[in-house]
């Protein structure tokens, strides 16, 4: 097995025009805020710039997270990839690697937009913002990819999985947010929801506002999902 060649081809398959267009559109979308600050010295902050960028970036990245694990179910290439335990593990690792690179690029796009905002409008920007944007996008991508991977291990209907993934990223956080408006719900439940990556990532990523605790928890839950998938994937029928 030529691992480097395999990863190279896997990355080539996923770094396609659609990805660059998604980042480009997200950049343009966020750029509208940069432009309005430039033109009207508007009341917006860098968090609004990254927020509007994330309006497209999180949806596009969410689609990538699900596509990367369900494309092989859709094409049936699972039948070629899953013929041994070793190949199933290679599949899992390669998907995590590829989504890390894709997420990294979305993070870089966000950082680039913040830099443009800084250059044009003189708003704050530092090297730390680049690392922060990249790290938070990578956490988002890896967590949701592993979550969808685990879901796809028990439910293998492609179209429903794609819809489920969009609902998970776009609708579920809003629904979970209701718990904060109901006083009767105990505080520990509210804390649990607030720190759950499924809630915190879609809500905090647009403003690059994940705190250390949220990032740590996301990393730990992602690791647990990876370990679960690593153990279970070789034992599942396809």
């Amino acid at each position, binding site marked *: *097995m030529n691992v480097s060649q395999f990863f190279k081809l896997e990355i080539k398959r996923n770094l396609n025009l659609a990805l660059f267009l998604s980042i480009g559109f997200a950049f343009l979308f966020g750029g509208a805020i940069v432009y309005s600050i430039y033109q009207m010295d508007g009341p917006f902050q860098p968090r609004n710039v990254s927020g509007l960028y994330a309006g497209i970036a999180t949806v596009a990245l969410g689609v990538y997270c699900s596509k990367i694990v369900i494309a092989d179910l859709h094409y049936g290439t699972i039948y070629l*990839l899953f013929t041994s335990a070793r190949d199933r593990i290679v599949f899992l690792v390669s998907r995590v690697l590829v989504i890390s690179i894709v997420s990294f690029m979305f993070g870089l796009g966000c950082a680039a937009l913040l830099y443009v905002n800084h250059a044009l409008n003189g708003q704050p920007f530092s090297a730390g913002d680049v690392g922060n944007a990249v790290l938070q996008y990578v956490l988002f991508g890896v967590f949701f990819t592993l979550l969808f991977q685990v879901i796809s291990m028990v439910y293998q209907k492609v179209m429903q999985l794609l819809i489920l993934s969009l609902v998970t990223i776009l609708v579920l956080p809003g629904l979970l947010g209701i718990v904060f408006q109901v006083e009767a719900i105990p505080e520990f439940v509210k804390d649990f929801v607030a720190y759950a990556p499924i809630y915190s990532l879609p809500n905090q990523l647009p403003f690059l506002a994940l705190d250390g605790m949220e990032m740590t928890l996301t990393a730990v839950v992602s690791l647990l999902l990876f370990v679960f998938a690593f153990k279970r994937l070789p034992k599942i029928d*396809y």
Partner: protein
Amino acid sequence: MSVEMHKLSKTFNRQELALSEVDFTLRKGEVVGLVGPNGAGKTTLMKIISGIIVQYDGVLTFRGEGRSVGSLIEKPKYFPNKSGRYNIDYFHSLFGGDDEHFDEIIESLGMASYLKKKVKDYSLGMKQRLGIALALISNPDYLVLDEPTNGMDPDGIRHILGYLKRLAKEKGIGILISSHILEDIESMSDRVYVIKEGRIINEYARDQHDREVLELTFSEGDLHQALHVLEAYEGVTRSGQILSVPFAGDMKQVLKHLSQNDLFPIDVKRKKDTLEDFYFQNMESEAK
């Protein structure tokens, strides 16, 4: 060196029995056919050998060296928006194997001039060839092929079946092949398993290819007695008023035996025992 199944059963959703206590052997270097009606369990059996289905009851054993399996199950699998070259490179890099082997597959399957095209633009037959190439790319010890010649023209079918047969003999690959075209299966298989409702109901061996059969038509009145008299011959089957009697050697002996019992068939036909006959005899006898 072989892959063996012993009392292998598979149930889906805890109720639907797809395979029931199947005993099955595929040796390296031989071609084994698998025939049966739709839903008989062929695909499930192939998926188990290929490692796609891993939860089952019973024992699956790979004896001797080499346990890699290449497969083409249900239909060819590939990335349709990528070129043939990309698809082959992708799985080649995953499974490894030397480049010489890789080039030989491309050449033998007549794919060289199609590699730059996107696979979605391939004809059905060419997609099928790609499926076979991807099954072979890992340089497997065993090859599992479900309807591999689907959509191919007659020349293509002959070419592919000949190539597969050579692979088995020259490279010692064990091939399990299924098809609804019984002639194809018969022409290339050393043995054929007949599967129905998840059970292997009979096995058709190579030596049966050369066996002849007497088809004797009797009147209603003689039929029962004729059946009784012919019990001495192994493998006699009945279809309506026709009794099929496999024989090796002189057919006169069979007829003499009948005449000694005052039995005279209305019609006598001598023919080769084909897989098709064997298949339908087994399906009919199972139905009864």
